[in-house]
């Protein structure tokens, strides 16, 4: 069945890929954001210290004797101590003139008085953070602008940042792995719902067209709704055609039955041989046509069901007992005794309706061709394999026909004037084959036919 379905991708895989992809992206964003935040916080810390150190130096600036004087309080450098032994640089300018320190530390142009400016520069491959502040001192010769820059390398900072980054990376990876597991689980649960629906539909027998009543997620409701509508339409159509067949059979068979009954009744009153012959021919033709129609329908049913066997544990013995009971009146008409011989219980996994049909045909045939006042034996044997044999005491099969008799519409030479369709053994054989078995015809050494259905 699935062979005819065009498959394009898999919902489960698609869902899993989208979810894990999303998780990876989120993990990456998390990593970047946390790292940037950490860097900012760490930078803020260093800036505060640099600024405090710079201010403590700048606060000592005074004008004495017309010269600008500054002092380095002890704390101004000690506060800059780090575990990574970062180096500290400084520069003090008065206006454009370097009073002390490293001349490569240049006062930024946009530095406003009484303000602190931070910038990051690279000198000889070292990353430096510089805090610069300035102050205007009023001397006897007018205002003088003093600025102080304190710079520090960022080794401790980058160590801290690396540590944080590593931890965040682990966190991101863990987050990704957990999300992926969650994604795969979510994908399989979602597809599991579908699989359960599929199973519940596939497990149905071929005749079951009832709507799916199992609760399904709302996303699947439209699909299940359409499926239910489709099945109810199919069911409706099937019922209609079944009703049609039943109605047709009724319309055709009832008049046939009328004609047959009249012909039979007339036969009781008519003495002339040629009239009797034609009445008998009439009855015969009616029986032929109705039997063939019935067998054709049965054969069609067998062919259909053989492809969709409705399997159940079938008790062969019980099935045969019912059949024998049903056919006993017909057997009695010819004083034929039907005996059953059973070797213990015999159950079989099979289609009960097909098996019943096949076995009915075998017993029916035997009853039809066996002479009056004989015995019919129905035997269920369990070794070498499970089999049902029907033995009669008739004249058996013509040896050259044994191979061909189960063919469609083939009738034996020994049929006499018995009414038949030539489909009985065909049906039995097809049922046997559908159950992985075979139908074997043989003649008994002591006379009579034997038909065996092997499973």
């Amino acid at each position, binding site marked *: 069945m699935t062979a005819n379905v065009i498959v394009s991708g898999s919902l489960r895989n698609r869902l899993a890929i989208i979810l894990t992809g999303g998780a990876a992206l989120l993990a990456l964003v998390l990593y970047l954001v946390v790292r940037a935040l950490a860097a900012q916080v760490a930078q803020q810390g260093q800036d505060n210290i640099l600024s405090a150190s710079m201010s403590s130096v700048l606060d000592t600036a005074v004008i004495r004797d017309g010269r600008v004087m500054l002092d380095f309080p002890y704390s101004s450098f000690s506060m800059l101590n780090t575990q990574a032994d970062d180096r500290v640089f400084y520069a003090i300018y008065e206006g454009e003139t370097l009073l002390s320190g490293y001349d490569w530390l240049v006062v930024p142009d946009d530095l406003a008085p009484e303000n602190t400016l931070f910038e990051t520069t690279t000198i000889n491959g070292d990353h430096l953070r510089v805090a610069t502040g300035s102050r205007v001192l009023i001397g006897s010769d007018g205002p003088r602008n003093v600025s102080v820059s304190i710079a520090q390398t960022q080794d401790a900072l980058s160590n801290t940042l690396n540590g944080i980054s590593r931890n965040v990376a682990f966190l991101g990876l863990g987050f990704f792995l957990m999300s992926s597991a969650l994604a795969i689980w979510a994908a399989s649960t979602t597809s599991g719902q579908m699989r359960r629906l599929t199973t519940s539909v596939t497990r149905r027998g071929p005749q079951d067209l009832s709507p799916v009543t199992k609760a399904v997620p709302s996303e699947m409701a439209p699909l299940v709704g359409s499926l239910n509508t489709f099945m109810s339409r199919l069911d409706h159509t099937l019922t209609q055609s079944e009703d049609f067949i039943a109605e047709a059979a009724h319309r055709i068979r*009832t008049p*046939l039955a009328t004609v*047959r*009954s009249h012909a039979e009744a007339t036969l009781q009153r008519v003495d002339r041989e040629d009239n009797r012959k034609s009445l008998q021919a009439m*009855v015969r033709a009616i029986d032929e046509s109705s039997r063939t129609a019935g067998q054709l*329908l049965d054969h069609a049913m067998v062919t259909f069901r053989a492809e969709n066997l409705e399997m159940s544990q079938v008790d062969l013995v019980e099935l045969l007992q019912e059949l024998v009971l049903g056919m006993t009146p017909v057997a009695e008409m010819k004083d034929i005794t039907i005996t059953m011989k059973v070797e213990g219980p015999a159950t079989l996994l099979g289609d009960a309706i097909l098996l019943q049909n096949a076995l009915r045909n075998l017993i029916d045939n035997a009853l039809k061709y066996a002479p009056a006042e004989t015995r019919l034996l129905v035997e269920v044997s369990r070794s070498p394999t499970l089999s049902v044999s029907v033995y009669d005491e008739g004249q058996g099969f013509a040896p050259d026909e044994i191979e061909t008799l189960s063919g469609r519409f083939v009738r034996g030479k020994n049929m006499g004037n*018995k009414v038949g369709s030539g489909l009985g053994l065909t049906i039995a054989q097809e049922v046997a084959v559908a159950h992985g078995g075979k139908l074997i015809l043989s003649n008994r050494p002591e006379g009579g036919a034997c038909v065996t259905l092997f499973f």
Partner: protein
Amino acid sequence: MKYLLVEDNLELAEAVASRIRLDGHTVDHAAKIADAIAFVDTSEYDLILLDIMLPDGDGRHFLKQHRARKNFTPVIVLTARSQVSDRIGLLDLGADDYLTKPFDHAELQARCRAVLRRNAGSAQSLQTIGDVEFDAVSGHLRVNGNTINLRNRELRLLELLIANKGKIFSKQKLVDRLFSYDDDVSENAIEVYIGRLRKHLEGSEVRIVTLRGLGYRLDHDS
């Protein structure tokens, strides 16, 4: 025996009813379910022959109601449907047997007999002719205090002769009445069965007389 035939096709009903009457039974005919219910309510029947497709409903509903009302009169369904699943459904609904249209009257008779025998206890089937007791349902014949089990064909032959005692039957008539034309019964076979019956009836007041060139007749000294 009293039969109720529920069949909407009047032609068929007439043909079947007349054939059953020929066998010496009484038949009431109902053309729809409502009539059938009225008949069953007012009269006792030994057997109901029920068609499935009726103008005022499905015969199966009648069957269900019939059984629900604890009415155990046996029912044989006459159906135009031959599918196996239908047959199984009918038996599940409480039908005692079924027959597919068109049917052989001999088979209908045989099935009626089997159903009646299964639902035995009907003392009406016991007939007495002179010093012979005959039970057409169980197939027992009591002659001189001995009970004989008759074979089916002997039984039917004797039943026919008893029901028409004093009348002459040609061999051909007997074949027509007793056997399905499919049976390949020769007129010589009739002689065999007559011979057996005579043997069973030996020493009783009942005799089967041969009328040369005409046939057989059942007589009894009284």
